[in-house]
Structures are given as C-alpha cells and as structure tokens.
C-alpha cells in the first residue's frame, strides 16, 4: 500500500513532470528561537537537560540546540502575516496534489525524519519540496484517493544539511461525501 510500489506511467503528464523536481525553495521568515523548542518540550513534558541546562548543552553540543523533531517547525509559515493572501500552508506540494486530484481530505500516513547537523538558535533554515511518487487510485477505510511521497530537505544559512523529512500522504474523498 505504499506509493513507491506504483508506477508513474499512468499519472497525468503535468503531475509526472513534477516527480523529482525541487519545488517551492523557501527560506524561513524568522530565525530559530529557543522559546519554540521550549514549547515543544513543555507540550511533551520532556525534561532532557540537553535542552534545559546550558552547561549540559555546552558540554555535549557546544551550546544550545533545537530538539531534532522540531525540524519542520522552522519552515512552517505564520498563520497570517502582512501581505499574505489566503491560508498560509506548509507542505504546499501536498495541498497542490489535493487540489489537482480533487481530493478534499488528506492524512499523513508515514513520516521519516533523518537528522544531520544540529539546528541552533539563530539559524535561518531553508528548504525545498520534492515530489517522489504518486500512486494510482486506492480505497481505504477513509475513502478513495491517492498516496504520495514528498521529501523535504532542510539546510541552514551555511548550506549545511540539517535534516531530511519524507512524508507519505493520502488524499481522499469520503465515501459518504
């Protein structure tokens, strides 16, 4: 049931052309802040001293770092910002595919996170989205739709790779809709 098992042969040409092509290169509008990491630590009651105790952070990582699983946080747009029109959404390729195939609902089913250089307060992160695959039509208990895999490569302001995130999404239409 993975999108990787599917050939792209049957895909509409405009979608097939997007496979493997970096899209929406973007640089965050704000620098990495410790307070955002603290919010995630608080939300998960995570007492790891590496993120709370500056002496521990200095000893192990030469200073404070961001919690690795906050990787996607640094590129998520503000809910609103001046000049923006419409809802600001992360993972634009995912929403493009929903619209392209007329699939109003979607869930993420699989997620792989690979962590490279630590992210530190003050870093400014950039990323690009790469569509890896799109399945043919599938029916699950949620409804009928398609699976797709999108990779996101994250780099810091020194162009060092800080992480790669791979999402499998399922866009669908509910059977009773």
């Amino acid at each position, binding site marked *: 049931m993975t999108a990787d098992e599917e050939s792209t042969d049957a895909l509409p040409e405009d979608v097939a052309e997007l496979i493997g092509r970096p899209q929406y290169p973007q640089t965050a509008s704000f620098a990495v802040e410790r307070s*955002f990491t603290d*919010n*995630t630590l*608080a*939300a*998960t*009651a*995570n007492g*790891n*001293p*590496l993120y709370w105790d500056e002496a*521990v952070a200095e000893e*192990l*990582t030469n200073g404070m770092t961001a*919690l*690795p*699983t*906050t990787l*996607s*946080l640094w590129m*998520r747009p503000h*809910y609103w910002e001046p000049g923006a029109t419409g809802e600001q959404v*992360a993972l634009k390729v995912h929403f493009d595919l929903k619209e392209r195939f007329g699939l109003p*609902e979607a*869930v*993420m*089913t*699989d*997620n*792989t*996170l*690979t*962590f*490279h*250089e*630590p992210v530190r307060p003050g870093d400014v992160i950039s990323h690009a989205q790469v569509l890896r695959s799109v399945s043919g039509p599938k029916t699950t208990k*949620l409804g009928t739709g398609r699976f797709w895999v999108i*990779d996101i490569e994250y780099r810091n302001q020194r162009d060092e790779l800080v992480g790669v995130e791979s999402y499998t999404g399922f866009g669908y239409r*509910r059977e*009773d809709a």
Partner: protein
Amino acid sequence: MAAMKLGDVSVGDTMDDLVVDVTPTTVVLGALASRDWRPMHHDHKFATERNGVRDIFLNTPNQAAWIERFITDWTGPRGRLGQMTFRMRDSVFPGDTMTFSGSVTAVGADDTGCGWVELDITLTATASEPTGNQSAEPRVATTCSARVAVPTSDDDNPWARRGDQWQPASEQRTR
C-alpha cells in the same frame, strides 16, 4: 537520566513504558507548539464533521516529539537521534491513554565507530470508554522504527560527530 553506553544494550531489551493521559490541552498544546494551525487539531466541529473522526487528534510532528522524548528518556542526553520512521495507523484523541513501549532490534557500530541502537516503538491508544464506533480496546495508533546513537565509552559523545563522521540514515532506508 542514566548515562547509557552501547555495551549496556542488547537485542531484545525493552524500554520502560511511558503512559500519558491525553486531554484536549495535550492535542492543542502539541499542535501549536509545532506551529500546526490546521483546524482538525483544535476545532472539534471541523474534526468530527469534515474529517469524520470522533474528536480533534494529535498531529504528526507532536507525535514525533513524544517519541523523541520516550527515546531520550531511555538513552539519557548523550543519545543522539539519527532517524525515525513512523506510521500512523489510527488517531489519538482526547480521552485516550497513550502507552509508548519499545524494544531493541539491533545494536552495533558503523564504519566510523559510531554506536547505534535500533528500536521498534509502538504507541498504543486506549479510550476511557466506548464512543460511537470506537471501542475501548487498546489499539495500535502509531508504530516507529528509530535509530539512535549512544556512546561507545565514557569518553565518547555522538553529538561531537560532524560531516562524514555522522551517518544518521540506516543503509536500507537511504534513498
């Protein structure tokens, strides 16, 4: 937290369970902490009427953060996550009890001498009472395979690794 080293770990070892009661605050706090503004993580009406689920539910980045906490509670602060692959099989709702459990599937060192432990982790959700078509039986909500570096000796620190000395992706998962 314990100062775990590679030699302390064997295949088949189990991690102490982490048990968390989920409230609406758990879900909303986690979504907003991860800057996920989508309504199914804070708007009950949207979740039930648009998504067709019983309530708002935990978002993906917050589940990753819970799993990270579960892993580093076990390794201590010198544990450095390399890779996590997880699959959401069911949603986690307010009123559920989350139980994180895990076991060691592989222990070894890579070509650079970095010590790695591979883990299989399961997040089980149990509703406090049957609701609609949701039973109160425990259900597997998420499964995760994780790869975490731990020190091979008292002097070793996986966090000190840079460049080619840090190979976070397991070979079978490398594209």
